[in-house]
């Protein structure tokens, strides 16, 4: 797999889902400016959906920020994973931090050479940032005209993209076991916990499996 092609595919696919975010934000009574600022500044899809979803459901600002931040903690783990690979300082470090998200980390970790990993991280991070913000604006403006993003298959394309990123990492037997455990745990926890907690809870599984052996 070529790193350029991977990065571009992920960027356009995930970026296009920004339409859904822009539309969701406007539907939940955020202004177009607020929707765009969330995509520019928060720049973490799940966290952004949490913000507009919780506020839209009447959950209040504190709940919205807490849920969003909980969803964003995995980016800190990604940052820790990427730092020794990227080896950047100063403004580049500040920029790298901003584009440290599921997709950039996922594409980087799917590469077998460090050079490709670094390229994948930057290309995907910047690519998703560009497309995500463009499509957020389009989605916010065209929310009514575009209609439901599910009609375009975008809501299945995103988990499929995550799966495509996950697949090459599933080599050793313990990684398959971890995947199965994470799927079961996140689904079991979904009905009982606020959105975001079922995902972050699965970090415990990685610790449990990585601790021994």
């Amino acid at each position, binding site marked *: 797999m070529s790193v350029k092609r991977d990065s571009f595919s992920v960027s356009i696919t995930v970026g296009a889902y920004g339409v859904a975010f822009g539309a969701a934000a406007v539907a939940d009574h955020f202004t177009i400016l607020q929707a765009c600022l969330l995509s520019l*500044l928060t720049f973490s899809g799940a966290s952004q959906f949490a913000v507009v979803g919780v506020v839209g459901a009447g959950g209040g600002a504190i709940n919205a920020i807490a849920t969003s931040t909980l969803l964003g903690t995995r*980016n800190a783990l990604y940052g820790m994973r990427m730092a020794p690979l990227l080896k950047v300082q100063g403004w580049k470090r500040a920029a790298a931090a901003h584009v440290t998200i599921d997709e950039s980390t996922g594409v980087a970790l799917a590469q077998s050479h460090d050079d490709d990993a670094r390229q994948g991280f930057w290309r995907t991070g910047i690519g998703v940032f560009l497309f995500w913000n463009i499509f957020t604006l389009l989605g916010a403006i065209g929310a009514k005209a575009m209609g439901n993003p599910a009609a375009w298959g975008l809501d299945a394309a995103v*988990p499929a993209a995550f*799966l495509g990123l996950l697949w090459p990492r599933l080599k050793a037997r313990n990684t398959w076991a971890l995947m199965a455990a994470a799927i079961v745990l996140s689904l079991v926890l979904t009905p009982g916990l606020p959105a975001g907690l079922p995902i972050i809870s699965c*970090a415990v599984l990685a610790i449990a499996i990585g601790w021994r052996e």
Partner: protein
Amino acid sequence: MSTQWIAVIGASVLAYALKYVGSTIPESWLAQPRVQRINSLTPIALLSALVATQTLAEKTKLVIDHRAAGVAVAIAALIAKAPFPVVVLSAAITSALVFHFH
């Protein structure tokens, strides 16, 4: 200031803080094999959970809908060693078709 503005600013500040703090955790912490193992397993756990919840969860409810059909086709495409764009596009097309004709 409105709820929306507080949420936008608060979420943005904390989101960036988390991203930056993660990248400043000392490299020496990562030199330990145990930390290395946990660190390389963490994205697998979180990505798996994301796939599962984005496919089967609707807020706090579990549902099997057009998305599951799309992801099932994506799995088949991955097993058949299809290239990444094919995996994603086949999922999107399947999901959209099920959505429209279900």
